[in-house]
């Protein structure tokens, strides 16, 4: 089971180390992680996605909650949450036709094209991890030269 955890922490040095260390020492895996300061500079928000059965995820949440530097730990309901990841792909262009084909693909996924060169171009895609994966599969035949991904950022939708 995939889970999105939203963790509000003290914005102090060493907290990222403590959180990731907790995952390692408790034998949990981090699938993706993104961190940024909140509107209140005292706090940072970490968004961590992870895999595990229900019991395991419950245990991760409790262990994170127990940490003194975590203010609030929430497991977000995927269906009531907006979650996105930013990804950058450098894609190979082998012939004149490729450029057009890649552009079509990028448009279909709502991406943007940057840094167009003769032999390659760069794509910026902000989407869910699943959509990024799907894009990656379709881009593979052209040749993916490099990828960088940010990890998921997520916010729960308001209830009203």
């Amino acid at each position, binding site marked *: 089971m995939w889970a999105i955890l939203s963790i509000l*922490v*003290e914005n102090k040095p*060493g907290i990222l*180390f*403590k959180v990731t*260390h907790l995952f390692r*020492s408790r034998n949990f895996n981090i699938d993706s992680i993104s961190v940024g300061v909140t509107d209140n500079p005292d706090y940072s928000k970490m968004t961590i996605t992870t895999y595990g059965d229900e*019991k395991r995820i*419950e*245990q991760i949440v*409790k*262990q994170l*909650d*127990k*940490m*003194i*530097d*975590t*203010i609030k730990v929430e497991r977000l309901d995927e269906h009531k949450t907006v979650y996105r990841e930013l990804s950058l792909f450098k894609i190979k262009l082998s012939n004149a036709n490729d450029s057009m084909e890649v552009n079509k693909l990028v448009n279909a996924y709502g991406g943007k094209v940057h840094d167009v060169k003769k032999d390659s171009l760069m794509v910026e895609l902000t989407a869910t991890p699943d959509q990024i994966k799907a894009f990656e599969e379709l881009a593979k035949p052209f040749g993916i030269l490099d990828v960088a991904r940010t990890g998921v950022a997520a916010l729960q939708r308001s209830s009203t």
Partner: protein
Amino acid sequence: MNKMEIMSGAKALMVAMEKEGVKQVFGLPGGANLPIYDEFARCDIRHILARHEQSASHMADGFGRVSRKPGVCFATSGPGATNILTGLATAQADSSPMIAVTGQVPVAMIGRDAFQESDIIGMSNPVVKYAFQPRTAGEIPEAVKKGFFIAESGRPGPVLIDIPKDVQTNKEPMDFPDEFKIRGYHPWADPDIVNVERAIEMLLHAEKPIILAGGGTIISSAFAELQSIAETLMLPVVTTFKGKGSFPENHPLSLGPIGMHGHAEANKMMTEADCVLAIGTRFSDRSVGTFEAFEKRLKIIHMDVDPAEIGKNQTAQIAVIGDVKVNLRVMVKLLLQRAIKKTDESPWVKHVKETKAYWKENLKIHPGEMGAAKILRKLREVLPKESIITTEVGQHQMWASLFYDVIQPGTFFSSTGLGTMGWGFPAAIGAKVARPDVPVVDIAGDGSFAMTENSLATAVLEDIPVIVFILNNSTLGMVAQWQRTFYDRRMIGVDQKSCPDYVKLAESYGAQGIRAQSMDELDKAIKTALSSDVATVIDIPIDPEEDVLPFVAPGTSLADMVLPS
């Protein structure tokens, strides 16, 4: 508001410690904590010199467990700091309140691989409850205040305060706050009346209910509440090893510890029970055997101060989160209000008592005069009931669990979680500092005692007369037992060859050394030690082939207990 006094970080540390009621510190000086040590010349806090930082940390741990106030240890940077890691991990594993203060290289030198620099904040992260590294002197008072609060509240644990040397010497106007806020820390929960009520119903409807009392019962000193509930509901009581002595072991309802080397009757009855009131326990593998087998046949009511323990190793049907003493009090009160008082012995309680009587008669023990059971029963017979026991780790520890009955609750302490050999003796020194009025005995084995035996210097020079009671089989006995059991008697690396001679060793430190080779000699030795005002080592040669039994092999369930044949 008080006028803020200008003082150095080192001085502020000592003032803050005094405000927390610290009377003594166990430690060792070095280059990076000299400014702190210099303050001992100008304050009333006693310094107790250890001969190794690990021992200093165990002394603080022993003090903390007995007094339920954080014990304090000091160490210098680098190797001084790394030497206390084992002490921190031991305290963390057993939820013991402790404050460790380490020196650090000056702020500007951090990260430059300076002489005696170690990243103790990074290294200690998984084995402390929290760590502070004040970067300015002015941060020290609040770090100390918060540190003590974190160490002793909720589920207690060790807190590290790592202070760079220039932060110790810098002078600043100091504010010693009475109030502070830790936004992400909520150690208290309200009494959970609803779930306690549900727990009572579940216990009343169970056919074979039992209490499993863990270390949390001792930490929160819920002895009276536990006893009242056991007697009111006629519930047999087993304990974990860490919970040993949370319930008087001479009580008719007491069955003693369960687990790998649990009492036969305790493991048997735990296996037969259908409902357990588990108090302050984390269901360690050493206590319950395989997790799946344990929970399969049981309804579990789990009371614990740490929400993360609920569901970690065992699935509870009812969880009662909060200080166990608070919630047990609620239970006592509700039982009283509802006028519930069982007087008839149920078939279950009758069966429990018969089983207990059977094993009292029939558990086979070593036939020799100086078998472990006889030695420990002799110790129990001679020691006053308020005596405090610490143990080392190994066969002697498990024999102590089996054959030394704790009568006064909260007088038995051991490194149960991390299983740290060498813990018992320095911890006994710490315990004796906390309770100088009662005898303190470290039940030891020769292998474990060897690891921190140089604490004899501390015991003698600081006038802390503890008793070290060595069951000496000249072997790393528990390892030898596993080699006999699981490795076809290939005995590798376990023979200590009677080296050193512990009587002479004790004497060389100025302590008293007595060898006891018969029950008469043992009786005299214990009495001599009790009436001496100097630390005493009693060396008791025993059979190196004696095994600890019963035994639940790792990876098996309590039902698979191997009995002595």
